[in-house]
């Protein structure tokens, strides 16, 4: 998956060396997002400059698309159906590379910037995600599952699409704001920026963002994972201790 994307990006990279193409200088407001006790999500500002060769701006303004992507997950999706009067999980589909988080912003609606094929190559848009199905479902079934996934994650704030929200100032400076939901998982995120002109991606640049848990949250999560016996003991001791203390205090009152 990753390799094929790199392969597709290669012509674009070669074109850049040709020097007559514009370049992107992107940045993000936070290189590191720390999840701590009061974490309710974050707002990321993705901004940067478009550098045209010799400083000549094209007559027709270019478009910017930014994509913020989280670590990919291998997932199993289940679909409920009514069987004998109750709703039970019936059909399943497996996907090898579903992004745990995907947010996209563009300066205009995607279908007016690029054609279907280009959008599919660069995964621009929630309906263009390449999920690599690994189960043998029919294609109609797969697209049903895919739209189910998009709908579910969109409502929990994990999939975001904000067409028309990238501001471009004087044709050279751009900025976009993307929300990072409180339900994001930890890992390495990428912020990709694409410069599109006449339906063609003429420049692309990537910035990495790390999302991690802060001291206490990280400590709890790794204790649960690696010292599960001690962790269990602590949970039990806490429950017994608090129950006993409350009883002891109540007897005094």
């Amino acid at each position: 998956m990753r390799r094929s994307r790199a392969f597709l990006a290669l012509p674009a990279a070669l074109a850049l060396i040709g020097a007559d193409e514009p370049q992107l200088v992107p940045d993000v407001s936070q290189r590191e997002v720390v999840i701590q006790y009061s974490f309710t999500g974050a707002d990321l500002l993705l901004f940067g400059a478009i550098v045209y060769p010799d400083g000549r701006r094209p007559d027709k303004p270019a478009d910017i698309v930014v994509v913020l992507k989280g670590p990919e997950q291998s997932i199993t999706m289940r679909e409920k159906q009514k069987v004998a009067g109750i709703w039970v999980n019936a059909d399943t589909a497996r996907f090898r590379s579903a992004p745990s988080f995907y947010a996209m912003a563009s300066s205009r609606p995607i279908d007016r910037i690029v054609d279907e094929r280009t959008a599919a190559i660069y995964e621009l848009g929630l309906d263009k995600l390449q999920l690599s199905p690994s189960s043998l479902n029919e294609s109609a079934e797969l697209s049903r599952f895919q739209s189910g996934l998009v709908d579910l994650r969109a409502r929990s704030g994990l999939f975001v699409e904000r067409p028309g929200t990238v501001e471009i100032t004087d044709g050279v400076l751009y900025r976009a704001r993307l929300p990072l939901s409180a339900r994001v998982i930890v890992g390495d995120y990428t912020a990709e920026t694409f410069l599109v002109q006449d339906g063609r991606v003429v420049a692309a640049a990537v910035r990495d963002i790390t999302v991690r848990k802060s001291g206490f949250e990280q400590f709890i999560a790794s204790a649960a994972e690696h010292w599960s016996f001690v962790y269990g003991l602590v949970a039990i001791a806490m429950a017994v201790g608090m129950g006993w203390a409350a009883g002891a205090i109540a007897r005094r009152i």
Partner: protein
Amino acid sequence: MDLYLPIANLSVNALVIIGLGGVVGLLSGMFGVGGGFLTTPLLIFYGIPPTVAAASAASQVTGASVSGVFTHMARGTVDFRMGGVLIAGGVVGAGMGVFIFRLLQYLGQIDTVIGILYVLMLGGIGALMAKESIQALVALKTGKRPPARKRRHHPLVAALPMRWRFYRSGLYISPLAPLLLGMATGILTMLLGVGGGFILVPAMLYLLGMATQSVVGTSLFQILFVTMATTMMHAMTTKAVDLVLALLLLIGSVVGAQVGTRISMSIRPEYLRILLAAIVLFVAARMALGLGFRPDEIYTIEVR
């Protein structure tokens, strides 16, 4: 006040969870039940993943039953021998529950099974309690006492081989009966995050025919240890015990439990029981509707 739960991986309003624990604790203090049957569905309803909800609710039941066990031990109304057999069965049952949990998770049917178990268990027990407490209320109003039921264990229990004496329970029966009973509640504790007092108390009364005064103390004693074992098994296998979530629930429930105990002293037990029966039947009906109505989410995602 938003607080991030490190295992559940989401933010919750801490006051809502404490309040939820408080309400459950209040009920558990009033009725002498663990209250896990309310915590797990409420947490799932709030958006906590079902596995984390069941795993963390077990430790809340531990906290809610501790002070009750001390009280009953002081009064001498705990049959330790009977409790020991029940706990042995409960721990084995919880271990079996781990396998059932994994199997159902693999098949993708854990949510449905949890739902059906809740409906059957709460519906059955609720109906039984409602019938009994209505009879008791009628008897109270008319002044007529119902004919005293002859205390006798179920014929199936009498058929089991090898008999032990359980002095405080006033029984001479095979330890296999409470062992099997303990196993059944252990499985339920692991799957549902409930203490199992609901099943245990009526079963001890009507199946085993135990002396009434030691039933509640012994069942609390069993619940305390089995929920402790379950918390440990969840910590070791599903790794879904959220300490922060458990702490919030405990803060609410241990306080609520003490308040509930005081309230229960000023209300007639007959009224308390019909109230509890109504709550149990309401939860069962709500879960049954949930199974039958089109769910909000048709799709579920499991990360591997």
